[in-house]
């Protein structure tokens, strides 16, 4: 069997851990605090649980290499995790061979077992255009339309419109459930 020869998804410089003990502790604290939320954020972009954990883990692995230079880890990690998801998908679509290792080592998660309601929300989101998923994901992680607009490189008005459309689709799904229950 031939082996996939491409390099890692991100050609990072030689790893260098944070120089101080405080920075390392800070990183570990952020990892514990943010990793699950970051995974959910990626899932809202249409990723399954495994893809999302991989992308979030890769984002943290890249963050570790330059932790002391990252001013806003919450936004930085979300941007990088999203890009990692796109890269993973690009790799998978273009090869049937083994994928290269992700930054951050093996996936540290078991299968994410979702209930019916959670799966429905994520399935509806996965069926939407990417802009709507992004607007929803950033906004529901507590970013204002203005902040979301800055991170996505679009206008605040476009964020609001895309969020409204995403909510409309989700609400339709919710109403169908309600009607089915009644």
């Amino acid at each position, binding site marked *: 069997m031939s082996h996939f020869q491409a390099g890692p998804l991100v050609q990072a410089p030689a790893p260098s851990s944070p120089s101080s003990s405080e920075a390392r502790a800070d990183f570990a604290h952020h*990892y514990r605090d943010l990793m699950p939320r970051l995974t959910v954020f990626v899932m809202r972009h249409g990723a399954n649980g495994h893809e999302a954990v991989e992308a979030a883990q890769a984002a943290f692995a890249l963050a570790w290499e330059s932790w002391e230079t990252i001013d806003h880890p919450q936004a930085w990690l979300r941007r990088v995790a999203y890009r990692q998801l796109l890269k993973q998908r690009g790799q998978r679509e273009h090869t049937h061979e083994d994928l290269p290792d992700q930054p*951050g080592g093996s996936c540290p998660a078991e299968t994410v077992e979702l209930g019916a309601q959670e799966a*429905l929300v994520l399935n509806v989101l996965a069926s939407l255009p990417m802009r709507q998923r992004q607007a929803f994901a950033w906004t529901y992680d507590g970013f204002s339309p203005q902040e979301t607009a800055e991170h996505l490189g679009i206008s605040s008005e476009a964020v609001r419109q895309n969020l409204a459309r995403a909510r409309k689709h989700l609400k339709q799904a919710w109403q169908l459930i309600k009607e089915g229950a009644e």
Partner: protein
Amino acid sequence: MSKATPTPKTHAEDDTAFDDWLAAADTATLERVEAAIDLDAGCAAIFAAAVVPETVTEDDTDNGHWGHLDTALREAADSIAPWLALRSLFVLPHQLDKAITTTRTMTVVGRALLPDSMRIPWGLASDFLTDCNAHLARLKHGLLRRDLSRQEAIALHDRALADITNFRAAFQQALCTTTHPKAHQVGERLVSTAEMLVVLLRWTRDSITYIFEDSECPTTVSVL
């Protein structure tokens, strides 16, 4: 019996119920993701992948007779990394051996390399290292002879973990009291090694729990 027509819900009420549904689904998703992710494993994987052997510069080796001790400490910390990447019952004895030898190396290196002005605070901090080494050795030998109960094994492990955590805290506090550059250089390395040990010991707890399974007696699986 009257058949009252239900009052139609307003948009606001509808939106509130919809938002509550979304919030409930979000909370449930987050809880399920939290349950699925092993945060210790994920963090350890990043730490382990990032640890690379340091290059010994000429300046380092010019430090005379203790240069090899400095190198030994670097190697002790770096060589913990591969054990963090393995999570299996069968590597538990090696992980405990690594922890035992690392605490010993840290004790020797700290005693030899730290300046005289650090003697007293080092002595206090290194007591925790000595205790940690003793608890780990008792744990390993107890598991080897299968004469530890589950409770005793977990207690020894918890004490060892507390010892290394206390060492780190005590030594870090001592480092704040000195401006000696060599003390900071060696101290940073010792603290970093202690952090790796903490991760390694957290790692081994699951294996120790597992070998006792549901009984008070160690499993018959030959792990040591």
